[in-house]
């Protein structure tokens, strides 16, 4: 694979998979917070 192809692949992967991971992490954090509030 050429350098330009690698760069576009990395940009796509970072934007899409990275973005998904970030919002999933937010979701999990918020769920835990809700559970902790429910217990206290």
């Amino acid at each position: 694979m050429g350098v330009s192809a690698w760069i576009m692949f990395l940009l796509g992967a970072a934007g899409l998979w990275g973005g998904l991971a970030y919002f999933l992490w937010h979701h999990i954090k918020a769920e835990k917070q809700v559970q902790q509030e429910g217990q206290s």
Partner: protein
Amino acid sequence: MEQRERWASKAGFILAAVGSAIGLGNIWRYPYVVYENGGGAFLIPYFVALLTAGIPILLLEYVIGHKYKASPPFGFRKIRRGAEWIGWWQVIVAFFVITYYMAILGWALSYTYYSFGTQWGEDTEGFFFNHYLSISEGFWGFGGIQWKVLIPFVIVWAVTYWIMQRGVSRGIEVANKILMPVLIAMMIIITIRGVTLPGAAEGLNVLFTPDFGALADPKVWVQAYGHVFFSLSIAFAIMITYSSYLPDKTDLTNSGLIAGLANSGFEFMAAIGVFATLGFLAAVQGVAVEEVATAGVGLAFVVFPQVINAFPFWNSLFGVLFFGSLLFAGFTSAISILEPVVAAVREKFHLSRKSAVNWVCGFAFLVGLLYTTSGGLRYLDVVDHFTNQYGIVLGGLLEVILVAWIAGKLGEYREHANRISYVRLGGWWNICLRWITPVLLTCMLLMTLLNEFSKPYEDYPYSGLLAFGWSVLGIILIGALYFTRLRQEGGNA
């Protein structure tokens, strides 16, 4: 009156929304769209389209469903009296889509079976069109029902019917919780196997090497907006219905972003898997990747069986994984396409879920029998073209015009989303929905119309396009107006 059904968990809703968005198009359409429209450079208009139209419309539909707790026709009526028909338009479009979508699922089921021992042989094109579909000569050659197509069609309908009868949390949610992880695991295996094949690097090179000159072509941008629009299951009543089953306290924005990015992340992975295996096929056949690259039915049922034939070992396993992933991706989308129709019929006629499912599935099954005939592929192609290019696009355009321009509710909806969501929507959301989306959807519609009148779609006869294309749009419009005028059972008009 029965209490409105609810998702058992937020994760269940997100998985169902992702399952709805991830469909056949993610696997067989997106890779080719990227390749044809500038390769890696296409990611730029794709990201812009996702952020300025795809996710904003998705969030709008989440808010409408969540705020009004109603199926699309009644949600739109609550936005503005007289707008109920827009909801029915979207619901009837969904009905026509499900009639042919189940036929394609039947093909995927058949090919999962044919994968055992690669039963399609060496001539994969002849096997699909002549042996399996027994395609007839001429557009009007119905040729009778083909049992090889009918049997899997009945099986996928039976399973779908059973899931729909079980309801939202026990049927749709459970199905998605089982099928989605399996689908993602299967696609990961396909991708890993794909990139480790000889020739895969050349396939990926063709896919990702950017042609930035393509970005100057407006058609590439329209393709990006079009793909994002069709890929996210927006504008045909699904997301409004799904979000109407959410509890009051739900982070709508975060759920929308997860669903949107999961759908895009999945198709990005599918593109890698598909082009890596196409690179392998090209290397085996000694031709350029461009010569084997294709999309849609041709990619799935003609080219992929060739890829599977060429595998050094475990051919059948790879076939089962590929066609199984098509089947599962399509299956979770199919139940989501049926749900808004069931919900709307239920609300209009005050039916039990069981009765509504019986009516909707029964009627859709009967209409779908048309696609099991020898001429079925052609009729399916025309109905698909017209319901997608006009039905869904027009449904989306009417929706944004109603909310942003006629009712002027964008500010109120933004407040609603921000009140319950961690990620806050800014003024950009209003700009996207008030200006960018309507302009782009109008451009898409005009370009399709221009193409339509310059050359008949796929060179089909005008009589066929009139019978299965324009007439279907007419039926959708008449049906939408008829259901709107019909007095609601036990309620007001």
